[in-house]
């Protein structure tokens, strides 16, 4: 392959050489295993050569936890203190919303004062909706909270809400401060940016392992995990929002004679408020996204209900709790957006606060004597859980054969062969092929990056798991594309379809990723097929969104010109809109890969044998090295795909003159 290097033409397509090049690459991938057998060192990385990174990390973390001392206090004391500190507001919120104020602990606990009655907890957000939005929003919020009460999710939802209510303000405040610090100090931003990028690509599971390691299995640890996961969004939005404050506004502040501190707090931060509110909204959504995952390290509440239901395959109960999380997310999302959209000085005044205070006081006073105000009566709850489970049984009785046949066909003819092929690929050939792709798309640096990231996976001994991940993820992306692109194209050509599709994908995006596993397992039971279906369902959203958006935003004059030349609608689509929308569609594919990777890790719960499973096992064994290495490998996969596709999209844009 090397010999062909100098023939790379400048600019235009390398007509005769490119096919040769790619044929060579494919040959290099497929031929060696046949020639050398699959034990050769160039095919599968020999075990003795594996870099014991896992062991090193574990040893380092053990040293941190057990031996590191800062003189006055040890590392462990520091984490314990932090955990105690964060535990205080969490305990308060828990008492307020879920458990009531008690004296003593365990079974001797005496209830001093009950928690906030359900009427007040549901009433406050409805009031807030009326204050910030309109009746429709209030109705939406009321319906969401009514679901929680009606379907018996109230107690769990309050535990979840308590954790969110503490995690969000902390995440927002710390994120804001870090964002401001990075805004003022360019060096800090340079350090922070790659770290944030990495955090975005390392699967959430993998974060949990070190947190579990340092903070143990507890609600506080879960909350820390939630904060760590959600805070980067606040940092990014803070940086972005501060940067978008008009130069003139800052100059005005300086001309008025502001000190640096006055400039920041009286001019820049308030002027950046809309962007900052976007960050708050994202922190809320990410925290809710994290609810189920956080329950793996000790969060109770709705997340734990879903997890437990999934483990027991009690899908009816799981579905109800997952819907509860989704509705909570929708309510808080719309509410925070409405608050953010309020202009300054709109309908403020003490009236609303007074009503809210009156509501809380009244409910709290009446609560102890009127049980229906204090607790939603059990008699009023209903459940669809049994119905869902019965439907499952019915489905298994009647559709079992068909589904099973389709599943079997898919496994035998597509999935298993593909898995074998990928797992059997020679690592050396893959490294070379990815380097070649990197070189063609972005030059030497990209080639080195792609090769380096791939080599990391190889030398840490994660090759086989990574290839299983690639197989599931790749197939998922392929199917998502095959389904999503036509839908996106259709939506781009018809306004009603566009609206319906938009509403559906917006809703899909609020669902916690775990929720996708439930219907998949209902239909296909545990295994690779269920995992694949969950991945496709989760990852199809960006393909649709970007295809639709890309085609819609092709420049109108170009489309008009094509129409003036007499192109049919089909010709315009094929010859004008699709090619010009391709860079954007590629970005959608990129997003899809990221979504698929995030989901693949979660499908470990339904028994896949990939990197996600490694992280999952590490989590249950608190094996910090194993979890982090597998997590980094997922990040490597994500970065390889991301960099290559981004470079391809850039090249395409440059060629189309869109850059």
């Amino acid at each position, binding site marked *: 392959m090397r010999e062909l290097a100098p023939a790379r033409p400048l600019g235009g397509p390398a007509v005769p050489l490119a096919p040769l090049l790619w044929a060579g690459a494919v040959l290099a991938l497929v031929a060696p295993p046949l020639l050398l057998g699959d034990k050769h060192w160039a095919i599968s990385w020999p075990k003795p050569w594996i870099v014991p990174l896992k062991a090193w990390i574990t040893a380092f973390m053990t040293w941190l936890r057990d031996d590191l001392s800062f003189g006055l206090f040890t590392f462990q004391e520091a984490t314990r203190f932090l955990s105690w500190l964060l535990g205080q507001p969490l305990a308060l919120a828990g008492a307020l919303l879920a458990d009531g104020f008690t004296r003593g602990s365990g079974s001797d606990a005496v209830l001093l004062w009950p928690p906030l009655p359900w009427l007040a907890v549901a009433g406050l957000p409805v009031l807030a909706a009326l204050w910030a939005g309109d009746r429709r929003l209030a109705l939406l919020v009321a319906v969401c909270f009514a679901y929680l009460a009606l379907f018996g999710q109230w107690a769990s939802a309050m535990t979840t809400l308590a954790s969110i209510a503490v995690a969000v303000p902390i995440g927002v405040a710390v994120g804001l401060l870090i964002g401001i610090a990075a805004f003022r100090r360019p060096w800090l931003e340079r350090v922070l940016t790659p770290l944030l990028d990495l955090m975005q690509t390392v699967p959430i599971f993998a974060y949990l392992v070190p947190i579990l390691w340092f903070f143990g299995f507890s609600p506080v640890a879960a909350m820390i995990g939630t904060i760590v996961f959600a805070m980067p969004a606040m940092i990014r939005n803070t940086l972005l929002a501060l940067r978008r404050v008009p130069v*003139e506004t800052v*100059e005005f502040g300086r001309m008025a004679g502001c*000190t640096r501190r006055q400039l920041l707090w009286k001019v820049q931060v308030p002027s950046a408020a809309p962007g900052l509110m976007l960050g708050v909204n994202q922190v809320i959504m990410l925290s809710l996204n994290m609810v189920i995952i956080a329950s793996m390290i000790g969060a109770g509440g709705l997340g734990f209900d879903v997890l437990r239901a999934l483990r027991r395959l009690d899908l009816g109960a799981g579905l109800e709790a997952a819907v509860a999380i989704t509705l909570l997310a929708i309510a808080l999302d719309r509410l925070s957006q409405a608050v953010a959209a309020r202009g300054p000085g709109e309908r403020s005044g003490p009236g609303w606060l007074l009503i809210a205070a009156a509501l809380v006081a009244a409910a709290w006073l009446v609560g102890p004597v009127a049980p229906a105000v204090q607790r939603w009566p059990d008699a009023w709850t209903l459940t669809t859980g049994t119905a869902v489970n019965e439907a499952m049984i019915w489905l298994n009785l009647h559709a079992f054969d068909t589904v099973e046949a389709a599943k079997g066909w898919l496994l035998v003819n597509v999935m298993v062969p593909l898995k074998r092929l990928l797992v059997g690929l020679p690592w050396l050939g893959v490294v070379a092929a990815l380097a070649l792709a990197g070189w063609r798309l972005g030059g030497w640096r990209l080639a080195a990056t792609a090769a380096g990231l791939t080599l990391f996976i190889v030398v840490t001994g994660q090759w086989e798991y990574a290839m299983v991940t690639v197989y599931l993820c790749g197939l998922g992306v392929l199917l998502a594309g095959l389904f999503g692109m036509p839908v996106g194209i259709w939506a781009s050509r018809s306004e009603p379809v566009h609206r319906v599709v938009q509403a559906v994908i917006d809703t899909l995006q609020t669902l916690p990723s775990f929720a996708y596993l439930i219907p998949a397992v209902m239909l296909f039971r545990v295994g690779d097929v269920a995992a694949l279906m969950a991945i496709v369902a989760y990852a199809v959203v960006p393909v649709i969104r970007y295809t639709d958006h890309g085609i819609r935003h092709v420049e109108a004059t170009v489309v008009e010109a094509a129409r003036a030349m007499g192109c049919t609608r089909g010709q315009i689509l094929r010859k004008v809109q699709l090619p010009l929308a391709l860079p954007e569609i590629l970005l959608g594919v990129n997003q899809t890969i990221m979504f698929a990777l995030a989901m693949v890790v979660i499908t470990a719960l339904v028994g896949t044998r990939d990197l996600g499973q490694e992280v999952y096992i590490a989590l249950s064994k608190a094996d910090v090295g194993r979890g982090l290495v597998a997590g980094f490998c997922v990040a490597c996969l994500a970065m390889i795909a991301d960099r290559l596709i981004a470079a391809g999209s850039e090249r395409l844009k440059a060629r189309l003159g869109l850059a």
Partner: protein
Amino acid sequence: MRPVKLACRGLWKLFGPEAPRWRGRAPDATALASGGLIVAVRDVGLEIRAGEIFVIMGLSGSGKSTLVRCLSRLVEPSAGAVLFEGRDILAMREAELIELRRHKFGMVFQNFALLPHRDVLGNVAFPLEIQGVPRERREARAREVIALVGLQGRERHYPRELSGGQQQRVGIARSLAVEPELWFLDEPFSALDPLIRRELQDEFLRLQSVLHKTIVFITHDFDEAIRLADRIAIMQDGAVIQVGTAEELVTAPATPYVAEFTRDVPRAKVLSARRVMRPAVASNGLAGEVPADARLASIAARVLASDRPLAVVEDGRVIGVLGRDEVVAALIGREPVDA
């Protein structure tokens, strides 16, 4: 002559990757030719006198905003000196500079730069709040200047509830709240519709007739410059290529560029009686008197309506006569050669 309020000498501002190499000294010719420098301000020297309206005028990108920001040190000049009442502001420490900006400088911005989260009163009172003036006093003062710019009754409105013209009135009020001595205005009316622009220009002249500030006014609109300026500096590619009254620029352009700029100027609005008169001392048989610095536009009708010429008077003395021939010659662009 009135004292110099603000002056600059040998002022340079460079941007671009090579710029840091030229801190504190003027770049040499090879560096300028190399292409690694963007010269936003090129060796500018100016003297602005107390109480005058000094207009800096040039096309977009000619360096006006950068120059005015160097004068207020919002942008750190690469080289040169800026003297406010004789003190070099480039040598000042941060604290001194803040004091100066709090009490002596005011600035109005092209896009208003109002704080979106504060109402009109809050915006106007802001510079006083920064100084630590107690709420009562600063709000009373803010109400005063709000009334001065004709916005009374709108104190509780937010910027987004105001029209562009009203927003700029707030910007003007806000910059006047601290009673600055030196008033910078960077294209304050350029973002407004022509009619509103006109209205605010009148408003601005009215304010100045009461306040007598020293004003540095930026514009890219020569008509605006003529209406407002005592003196005009023309900028091209970062350099000031001519400074003078509108009349001087029109009648004696220093370069073809200035001539091109001033070609379509309505001459009647620029030329004064002194410029177009026939020098004479006798005052027999004249139809009346006109002041020497009166613009042609304001006296042409009288001259043309009269059979006999008018006397041009300065300090009570007749210095020339002005008849139909002189006026017509001036208006069609054949004014007498410079005396």
